[in-house]
């Protein structure tokens, strides 16, 4: 009988792998825009492939996140329920989804011309990097939960990622409503430029 933990391992590996490709490709494209000498060394075909790889990998990664969350939840249930670390995972999952959604949104809005704009390139690179850092943190918390140790233990300082923020239901609900309104305002009132 295959336990839920195995399915969680499969789904998280796909998420992490996709985001690793997406982050690496995005950062290279960003560097190509910011550093002309590097941009000159990268062929247009390679640049185009990196851009496509980043786009497709980030979409695939985001689509796989729900599978990772569901299998992770079921795994934690079978291992004795939620703990403070699983709550931390939820919080970092939110940030991870947000950053990667931003990466996809930017690429969808501007297309390949995104790399013509220094500001957008920087934003894309920073979003992908932060999204990947969130992914690493999520993996690290998972390692701490499953094996009791993680590679981030090698760091000489405590990241404080295992203690979830203490927030009540009402403040959390308020923040949720505020975020939903903000997203609605951005999507429906801010003009969406059409890039040729």
């Amino acid at each position, binding site marked *: 009988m295959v336990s839920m933990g195995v399915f969680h391992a499969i789904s998280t590996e796909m998420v992490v792998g996709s985001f690793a490709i997406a982050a690496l490709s995005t950062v290279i494209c960003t560097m190509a825009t910011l550093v002309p000498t590097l941009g000159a060394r990268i062929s247009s075909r390679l640049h185009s492939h990196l851009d496509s790889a980043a786009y497709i990998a980030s979409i695939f990664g985001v689509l796989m996140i729900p599978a990772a969350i569901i299998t992770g939840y079921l795994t934690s249930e079978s291992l004795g329920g939620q703990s403070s670390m699983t709550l931390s995972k939820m919080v970092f999952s939110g940030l991870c989804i947000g950053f990667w959604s931003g990466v996809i949104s*930017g690429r969808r809005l501007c297309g390949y011309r995104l790399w013509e704009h220094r500001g957008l390139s920087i934003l894309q690179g920073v979003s992908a990097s932060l999204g990947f850092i969130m992914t690493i943190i999520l993996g690290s918390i998972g390692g701490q939960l499953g094996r009791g140790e993680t590679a981030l233990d090698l760091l000489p300082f405590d990241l404080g990622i295992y203690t979830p923020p203490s927030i009540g239901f009402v403040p959390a609900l308020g923040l949720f409503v505020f975020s939903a309104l903000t997203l609605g305002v951005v999507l429906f009132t801010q003009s969406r*430029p059409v890039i040729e």
Partner: protein
Amino acid sequence: MRIFHRLLILGILACLLSSPVMEANPGGNGDGTRDFACGGSCHADPDVSQPSSAVISLNTDRESTFVGGPLTITADIHGMELSERRLVGVFLTTGTFGVDDSPDNSGWSIVSDTNGGSSNYVESYVLDSDEGISVSWSLIAPSVEGFTTFHIGIHHGGEGIARLADTSDQGGVSVSVGPVPENFPQLTDWTPITQRGIGEVTNIQANMMNVTTASIEWKIMGSQTISSIDAEDTSNGWEAEIPTALADGSMEYRWRISNSEFETTTAWTTLSTDSSSTVDVNPARLLMLALAMITASVLISLQRFMAEDLITSKPQTTSIESSKDRTFQNTSSGISLNDPRRPVGWTDEQWIHYGPDHLASLGGDV
């Protein structure tokens, strides 16, 4: 179709029949007051179970106590096979392994168990079999004098079959219960705290008799380092405040009480901090969604704002096409389809794309 249906029904029946044999109660039954015979139909039946390889070490903090006196029993267990769920159930029993063998049947009261409850059967997850687990109980002796022999039994799974181990071969550990000495310092009214939330201030309070000094000794579960906090004699009894927990975990504490003649301690009481029992998951879920939306909102807003520049400017074919390949692409359009150096069998598309490279390898110009 008929054969298919029959096979399907047979398959379902086979699954139903095999599942109890193969899996027993893999999710456990939860902590509780249970006899060791509980679960015996699976774990003790030689047809459907096997012995455990676990090594069980049973220790007490004292060899004798007095009527109503304290006792701490600790069991260190390692080397057991583990199922996929890594769950091990541990029993503290008295006497032989049969029915009515939980300590309450012998007059003992369990003040706390290792999970912060007051059960003789506790379940624990084992990450590493070699490292094993340590389980402890804090007990109060019965009101009558005598001897009691304690045993430890474990139920678990491993390699697809139920397993069982106990300390009957070792003979268990015997504890004598004697009379209370005169002028002996004692706690008269104390309900131990066994669970608390993260960040909670924990004030331990107890009424005592024949006591002139009192302190709380505490240690992190599994650690040998013992810290001490002096208690104060107040109008509500003796009080001491133990450190606040900042994360999940367990600690043990006990009273050390004395007068001019005697000094004694209570049993170690486990105080567990488990956010899963106190923390509501819903705020974290809402926070997750809120963070996802607010992050995406900020990024989308910035992208739309900056993308206005791209509308006013024409597509820049030169800004990202300054490399060798882009030079190749620009010149490739000027390559002649009728060039005599074009290899036989190359399509127009192949020639346009790869022709310049081919010509360059020949050392010629486009």
